[in-house]
């Protein structure tokens, strides 16, 4: 068990990639706080599932875009399990549309959840992790930060910013032994990517050199690695987990 007795927070933890990360962390022995915004039943069923598998998880409702709410979650998790060592900033939304159709609120909403949400939890935790001289921050980015599609100016901007944020924070916390990394998933089979997958159909699989869509567990394994002692010497990096999609070519 690579994360035995560690306390972890996973935002957007009830569904999709976050759900996969929660299960993988719990299977490695971590106590996992499942932070969810609206999916209470999904969060509760996940907590039950983890418990049945012999792991430890608990659900915490919070809109990550709300700074005060993020601080409260951190306090509540500490009160329940003690000091936190790992945070995965995974909560993210899309509002895909052409820029000319995009309203300021569509842009704001994506930036607020994806980028401010990441800031909020990092800010609430950074000094605590620094004082412990131990900690792992893992931000979930996207291949869309570098290899983007039309209709994602808001999403691509939020993920590009997360990559820069990750590198800058990594430098600030490195002296304290706290690592900060990002994972950039490609096409992962989740509710969020469903619309794009439906539109792209089989074409998407053809674009992926490894010839399959990613599963939440593919990202979860990378997250476990970054949270584990094996990744102690890795910081400020964006690890792409996309089946080779971002290579931009397939075999002939």
């Amino acid at each position: 068990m690579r994360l035995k007795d560690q306390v972890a927070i996973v935002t957007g933890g009830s569904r999709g990639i976050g759900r996969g990360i929660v299960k993988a962390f719990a299977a490695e022995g971590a106590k996992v706080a499942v932070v969810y915004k609206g999916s209470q039943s999904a969060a509760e069923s996940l907590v039950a599932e983890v418990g049945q598998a012999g792991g430890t998880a608990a659900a915490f409702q919070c809109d990550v875009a709300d700074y005060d709410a993020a601080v409260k979650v951190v306090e509540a998790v500490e009160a329940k399990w003690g000091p936190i060592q790992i945070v995965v900033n995974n909560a993210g939304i899309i509002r895909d549309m052409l820029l000319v159709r995009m309203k300021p609120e569509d842009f704001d909403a994506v930036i607020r959840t994806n980028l401010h949400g990441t800031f909020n939890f990092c800010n609430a935790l950074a000094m605590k992790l620094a004082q412990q001289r131990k900690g792992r921050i893992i931000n979930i980015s996207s291949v869309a930060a570098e290899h983007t599609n039309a209709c994602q100016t808001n999403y691509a901007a939020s993920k590009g910013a997360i990559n820069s944020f990750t590198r800058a924070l990594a430098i600030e916390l490195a002296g304290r032994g706290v690592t900060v990394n990002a994972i950039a998933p490609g096409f992962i089979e989740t509710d969020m990517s469903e619309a794009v997958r439906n539109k792209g159909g089989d074409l998407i699989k053809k674009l992926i050199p490894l010839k399959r869509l990613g599963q939440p567990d593919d990202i979860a394994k990378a997250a476990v690695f970054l949270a584990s002692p094996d990744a102690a010497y890795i910081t400020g990096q964006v690890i792409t987990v996309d089946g080779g999609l971002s290579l931009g070519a397939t075999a002939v």
Partner: protein
Amino acid sequence: MPSQAEIYQKVSATLVDALNVEQEEIKPTSTLQGDLGAESIDFLDIVFRLEREFGIKIPRNELFPESIFQGDPEFVQNGKVTAKGLEELRQKMPFADLSGFEKNPELSAISDLFTVEMIAKYIEGKLQNKK
């Protein structure tokens, strides 16, 4: 109010925790950056720990003022702190010992003012005012 020795003792214990250094490395004249390896986040950590340890509030920029001269040519010329700049320093950091710095006031040496005894003196002043 704790004695000078008690304050110094607590300050150095705080630095042991904040900077992850050995007690033996800490001397009254040790500089935080040069001798004890403090980085920017460490200064913040020291402030938080001192506040908790002594039950005081340390306003931002009081103990460790940032960019004191803000590039003002009245305060700094050719990399040296002017007489007016020294006066500004005395006002902002009355708890710092400027006697060595005044002899050769290179701006780059300003971080050497941040020593263990400077913190102890600052705390003494704070606790006296609190009474």
